[in-house]
């Protein structure tokens, strides 16, 4: 659990919900979205809450949360809806080949705000849910236990050179 929490903390994983909310805070109001997002994109910044390694269409969880967000946080929803529209447009212009869709973190950040959760607790709340899945996976892995120990490719210096004595370095 501790290792899983440690991984979830990263902004590229569970920390993305917090990052998405921070982005919406910086954007502030819907009319500011286009300018802010284009500036960020020009600096090669990533938009938290967009893109996913696996989904090639709209994340089904995001779809449900998006509907919930409309009622849960009407003010923030307006900014978020416009932000989503512009972000998808920018991403599509930049990479027409890539299926860049909104992910669960984007709309989760709006719903959690509506429920009254401070953004510092978003990742913790994610963990409160995911603990059911983590423990299920631990139990599943016990049933067919094999040490997970992948390989690596050596990119270092050719092995075998003798170390120089410290005085000659």
């Amino acid at each position: 659990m501790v290792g899983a929490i440690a991984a979830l903390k990263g902004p590229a994983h569970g920390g993305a919900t917090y990052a998405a909310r921070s982005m919406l805070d910086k954007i502030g109001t819907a009319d500011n979205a286009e300018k802010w997002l284009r500036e960020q994109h020009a600096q090669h910044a990533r938009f938290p809450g967009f893109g996913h390694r696996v989904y090639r269409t709209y994340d089904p969880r995001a779809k449900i949360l998006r509907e919930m967000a409309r009622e849960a946080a009407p003010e923030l929803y307006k900014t978020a809806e416009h932000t989503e529209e512009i972000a998808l447009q920018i991403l599509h212009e930049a990479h027409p080949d890539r299926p860049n869709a909104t992910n669960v973190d984007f709309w989760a950040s709006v719903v959690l705000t509506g429920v009254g959760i401070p953004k510092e607790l978003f990742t913790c709340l994610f963990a409160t849910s995911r603990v059911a899945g983590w423990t299920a996976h631990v139990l599943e892995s016990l049933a067919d236990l094999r040490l997970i120990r992948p390989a690596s490719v050596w990119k270092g210096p050719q092995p075998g050179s003798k170390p120089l004595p410290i005085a000659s370095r």
Partner: protein
Amino acid sequence: MSQYVPGLEGIVAAQTAISLVDGANGRLVYRGYVIADLAEQMSFEEVAHLLWYGRLPTRAELDALTLELAGSRALTPAAMTTLEALPKDTDPMDVLRSVVSVQGIEHRLEKPTIPLAVHATASFPTILASFHRRRLGLPPVKPRADLAHAANYLYMLNGKESSPELVRALNTYLVLLADHGMNASTFTARVIASTDSDLASCLVGAIGALKGPAHGGAPSQVMDQLEQIGAPENAEHWMREARTRKVRFMGFGHRVYRTYDPRARILKAMCERLNPTFYALASKVEETALAILHEEHPERPQATNVEFYSAGVLQAIGLPKEFFPPTFAVSRAAGWTAHVLEQVANNRLIRPQSEYIGPEPRKPVPLAERG
């Protein structure tokens, strides 16, 4: 869609320039240097510099790093409070896992750097020694800045300096175990780093993986098994009988080495010198185990691994066996942090696939209709 490979065996998870486990030739290489050229010649600090910076330090750089490590040994007030709150019979690996976590909280989500690696690595011995003293009902011993990493660890554990011979032995152990390719705990640390998480998070996950008996938890089990065997003359009988009950011999076999583990070779020679009683029993048990394993699987290259003779060296140094796995972590902290820095320098989220073998998608039956 690629195929499922149990244990990710043979699947390349990273490119690395830190260490190479050359299984076919029985070589361990740090940054191009073969372990036998480092183990008994270099200080832990020198090797940590090599792992972090990619090259051996000059005298001035080594002095600076030694000073920086020595200056980072103190625990934060929150870490000390946590240490105090843990029951005295807590597994020392759990102590390390918990207190490393608390020691790291002030860095929040900072991007891992070499100074943070130094800071974290310096804290491991303090955490363990403070807990050891607490278990004995003794006050913690303040670290001594004039002592190097290995010497200071023993000093904080025992409240007095150890003999140069034992300090050298611990230093060699720390150098030997400092890194080892894409082992399970290092891979864990890199997975966590790949989410842009912080260094303490990576280390906590790595400690969690190292705790497992299939990884770093084995040396204390080697000791348990040797205790059960008791004497060299019992080895043959005990081990053949154990085998009929499918008991595994602890300290044998490795995923990568196809020959004798080069670290085990060095540790074996140290055991013979420092711990003759252990050596008499262990060498007989080793001989018997290898003979039995060869009879059972003549096609498999079954060799002694690093855990087996580590146990004898750590015992000679005076460590209780519960401190064998966390002392492994004291050493591996250098490698883990080096791998986290390497991962962060060229990062991509590590997010593999799985193969779904559950039921076809279906509709849930309402609760009232389930029976």
